[in-house]
């Protein structure tokens, strides 16, 4: 299996994603330069974290116009799995791959901290490796992670089980205290209606090895790769 890790100017979690895919899990990973139009026949596309174009104007607002985004959008439309992490999530929303928007944290501060997430649905190719209501731990590190969408959209996401991760307390309670950035309904990660584009603010690629303090990100990557393998076998 091969992952295409898109490199925008200002991406800075690209090497971490590369290490997660290839260093830790032993799959192939390639970097795709934002000025190119080539996803190098990858099976999955990763939009990594960072500060594409310095987050100037709005996080993701400029990156969505990078040349390679045309291929990324086509890949997603064709049902290919796209994993959009942190700045990648912001870019995916700006590009219309996912509904809603990510606004400045309610505290107005950048927040770097480990958070607890509750897995809300395991019926997706990204979460089949977890069990329902499992509480997992991984870091967040962002200044603009407050997920917002109009009421109907939020209802639809909830109704169709497209909210995959929610900020919770260590024992799985959804409280305002457990909400680091003011996201509506503690939403930390969602999938599109096709179930093939995942956007999340927390960093699964930073929870891959014991020395990182958590390995809770591993099942996310293995889930996708296994469903892809299953697909090719079928």
């Amino acid at each position, binding site marked *: 299996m091969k992952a295409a890790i898109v490199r925008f100017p200002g991406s800075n979690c690209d090497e971490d994603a590369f290490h997660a895919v290839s260093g830790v899990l032993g799959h192939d990973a390639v970097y795709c330069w934002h000025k190119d139009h080539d996803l190098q026949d990858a099976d999955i596309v990763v939009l990594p974290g960072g500060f594409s174009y310095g987050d100037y*104007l*709005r996080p993701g*607002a*400029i990156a969505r*116009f990078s040349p390679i985004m045309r291929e990324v959008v086509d890949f997603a439309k064709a049902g290919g799995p796209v994993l959009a992490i942190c700045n990648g999530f912001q870019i995916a*929303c*700006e590009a219309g791959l996912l509904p*809603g*928007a990510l*606004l*400045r*944290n*309610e*505290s*107005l501060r950048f927040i770097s901290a480990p958070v607890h997430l509750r897995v809300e649905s395991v019926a997706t190719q990204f979460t089949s490796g977890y069990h329902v209501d499992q509480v997992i731990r991984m870091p967040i590190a962002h200044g603009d992670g*407050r997920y*917002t*969408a*109009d009421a109907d959209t939020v209802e639809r996401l909830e109704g169709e089980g497209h909210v995959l991760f929610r900020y919770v307390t260590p024992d799985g309670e959804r409280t305002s205290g457990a909400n680091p950035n*003011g996201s509506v309904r503690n939403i930390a990660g969602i999938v599109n209606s096709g179930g093939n584009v995942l956007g999340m603010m927390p960093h699964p690629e930073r929870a891959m090895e014991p020395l990182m303090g958590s390995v809770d990100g591993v099942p996310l990557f293995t889930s996708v790769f296994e469903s892809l393998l299953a697909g090719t076998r079928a």
Partner: protein
Amino acid sequence: MTRFRLAIHIVPRRGILDPQGKAVTDALHSLGFSGVGDVRVGRYLVVETDAESADAARASARSMCEKLLANPVTEDFEIAAVEQS
């Protein structure tokens, strides 16, 4: 072609939480500006551009906002001024 100066306002849409506006309100109160009520904080852009006419300039200002400058999900924009410069 004439040079125009476009002034653009981009504001958080009503109903969307504006924590920066709130922080500024609180700050103004604690500085003694007790009369202050609601504060909204948005973006102000000044764009120099060439255009055939004021109308053309205004039209391209709109499309800049729709394409890039404002986020349709959370923000409203207004073209505050179009002047020759």
